[in-house]
């Protein structure tokens, strides 16, 4: 692990690389910073139950395989003389690759191989290192690393081959032998690995074909020989590629990963490409169309999650079918390649599928070639390759733009969507130079203006509030002052009190009759 890190030229402190439990071994990020041993202990404790399940399955598989081996070992010599040689010493064959495996035991990828090897030959259980490291744990603990998926695929494969009886066992043996052989070839380049797998497909298909030609007459199975070969080959591909996926998908010997990143960045930089520029005849305003577009995007993204090349192709085909229906709904007539390719390009641009280049490379390298070259899946895959190539080389001319426009869009100075967006923010359009900004910038400007307007209004508000406060503070003083002034101006005078009779003021009293005197009535 550390060696690989140094080779990449990344500086990492030695202590960071060591196992978190401090046992002195190197840790691995994939094992949460633990070394293989501590990780195993940790892992085992947490997933005891699953280990037991795995154990049961592994034992079942092994029993089946041993039974298959026992019967085919005796039988194969007469039924398949052309294939006896490779199988004559299967146990012997496994020893070779295994010694190499020991050297690289820290490599995470080899764990899966161990599982396969265990299935293949009991001899791998006697691995000295494993025994000392794990103490009490025996062979099934090794198999726990094989994910549930892988086990399921193995199980399906065994089930499928059971129907084929003797040749089925033969096929199983071949596949296991091949996977073991592949595990010893990790240092080969991707192209060489691809060649190995393709050779294997070719040999297997040839062998099946010649076998079926002889076998056909003697059995009741009434299917054409090429069809059954195809069927078996599909299963073989599924089994092998599920097993090999981790070690051959985006291998370190290639620059696939770099290309993935480049493509991803490229697609991000092209976010401004509109459906009109690509001359796509899809109208996303129609709900059914946009539904299909969403489905197509989902499918092309889903491709990355599949392991078997054929399943990946299936995703591409589904994606393409959705595009076809989208075009058909829009145009009211069946789509042609002239409509389809631009639409696919648009979908890829919108989806930005993860690890696009790696997936394309993986399918090209490891898919059964007969499927890839001619069939319907192959057609859609080719279109996807074209779309990827187009996006890589995309320039002003391919979008019917002038080079200046293209540059402006690429650098983010302008946006083709500005014309429509100006209507939404009329204020920004009036400012000089705003025409050269893209949608987001325009919106940003608009928001900034709004904010500055708000802040100025708030300032006036604050001023007004402060003056109001000042007014309020000065008001009682003013009132007091006024009151004082008035008090000073009109001092309180207490005038002498003049007492007079009520009638004193009356001038004409003489003419009045005398006032009534109260009379007291007795009774």
């Amino acid at each position, binding site marked *: 692990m550390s060696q690989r890190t140094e080779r990449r030229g990344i500086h990492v402190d030695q202590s960071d690389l060591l196992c978190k439990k401090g046992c002195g071994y190197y840790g691995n990020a994939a094992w949460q910073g633990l070394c293989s041993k501590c990780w195993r202990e940790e892992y085992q404790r947490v997933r005891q139950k699953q280990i037991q399940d795995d154990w049961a399955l592994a034992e079942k598989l092994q029993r089946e395989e041993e039974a298959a081996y026992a019967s085919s070992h005796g039988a194969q010599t007469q039924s398949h003389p052309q294939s006896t040689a490779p199988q004559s010493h299967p146990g012997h064959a496994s020893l070779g690759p295994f010694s190499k495996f020991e050297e690289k035991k820290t490599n995470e990828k080899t764990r899966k191989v161990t599982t396969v090897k265990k299935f293949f030959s009991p001899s791998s259980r006697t691995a000295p290192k494993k025994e000392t490291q794990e103490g009490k744990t025996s062979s099934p603990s090794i198999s726990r690393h094989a994910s549930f998926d892988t086990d399921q695929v193995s199980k399906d494969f065994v089930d499928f081959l059971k129907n084929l009886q003797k040749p089925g066992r033969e096929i199983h043996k071949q596949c296991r032998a091949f996977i073991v052989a592949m595990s010893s070839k990790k240092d080969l380049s991707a192209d060489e690995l691809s060649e190995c797998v393709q050779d294997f497909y070719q040999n297997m298909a040839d062998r099946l074909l010649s076998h079926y030609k002889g076998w056909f007459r003697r059995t009741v199975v009434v299917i054409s020989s090429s069809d059954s070969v195809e069927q078996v080959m599909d299963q073989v591909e599924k089994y092998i590629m599920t097993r090999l996926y981790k070690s051959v998908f985006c291998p370190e010997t290639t620059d696939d990963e770099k290309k993935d990143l480049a493509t991803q960045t490229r697609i991000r930089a092209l976010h401004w490409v509109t459906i009109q520029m690509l001359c796509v005849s899809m109208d996303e305003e129609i709900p059914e169309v946009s539904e299909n577009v969403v489905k197509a995007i989902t499918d092309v993204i889903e491709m990355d999650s599949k392991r078997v090349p054929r399943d990946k192709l299936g995703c591409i085909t589904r994606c393409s079918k959705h595009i076809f229906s989208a075009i058909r709904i829009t145009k009211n007539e069946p789509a042609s390649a002239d409509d389809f390719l631009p639409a696919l390009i648009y979908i890829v641009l919108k989806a930005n599928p993860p690890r696009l280049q790696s997936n394309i490379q993986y399918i090209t390298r490891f898919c059964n070639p007969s*499927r890839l070259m001619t069939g319907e899946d192959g057609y859609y895959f080719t279109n996807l390759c074209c779309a990827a190539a187009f996006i890589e080389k995309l320039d002003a001319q391919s979008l019917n733009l002038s080079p200046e426009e293209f540059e402006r869009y690429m650098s983010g100075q302008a946006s083709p969507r500005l014309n429509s967006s100006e209507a939404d923010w009329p204020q920004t359009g009036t400012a000089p130079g705003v025409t050269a900004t893209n949608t987001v910038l325009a919106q940003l400007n608009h928001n900034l203006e709004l904010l500055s307007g708000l802040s100025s209004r708030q300032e006036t508000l604050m001023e007004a509030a402060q003056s109001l406060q000042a007014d309020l503070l000065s008001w009682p003083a003013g009132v007091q002052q006024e009151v004082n002034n008035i008090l000073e101006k009109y001092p309180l005078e207490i005038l002498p009190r003049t007492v007079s009779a009520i009638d004193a003021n009356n001038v004409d009293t003489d003419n009045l009759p005398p006032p009534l005197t109260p009379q007291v009535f007795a009774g």
Partner: protein
Amino acid sequence: MSAMRVDAKVVMLGKESVGKTSLVERYVHHRFLVGPYQNTIGAAFVAKPIQVGEKVITLGIWDTAGSERYEAMSRIYYRGARAAIVCYDLTDSSSFQRARFWVMELQNCEEHCKIYLCATKNDLVEGDRSLRQIDYHDAQDFAEEIGAQHFETSSKTGNNVDELFQKVAEDYNSTAFQYMTAEETGVDLGQKKDSYFYSCCHNN
């Protein structure tokens, strides 16, 4: 979905709106759809079984995008094709120039691919001779020069369409036999040289 086994890949090449898809549509579904601005109709991929003598050959017919903007990608399309039907429009001389381009490309990149030169819209020319822009003899000379078969077809009337595809299938059938025998010897040699079965067994 893709249950149909395909024996040979046949690509349709030619400028936009020369009628590549109409040709396929006519051949596969025996129909011709009319509309004002329809450059192509029908699905882009068709698998069509054809009876050749005793055998049935299934052709996988690949429609391609003819626009010039995808010219750089065209090689990806015809990789591994056993036959290419290069179409041109009898009423459009520029489409013939483009056909010459495809032929050049094919000769350079795909030597196993057999070329069929196919003129389309013959019905228009028959209706009005002045519309013809490509002389029959010029095209015939060109076809002979490149060693290609030459057909003048009409998707509207169906004239010569079946003959074209039948010829493609027959040619494939006769060459496939040679091809297969050649391939088999190739595999034998390879097996001796570098086989994983070999290396697996004799590793130690």
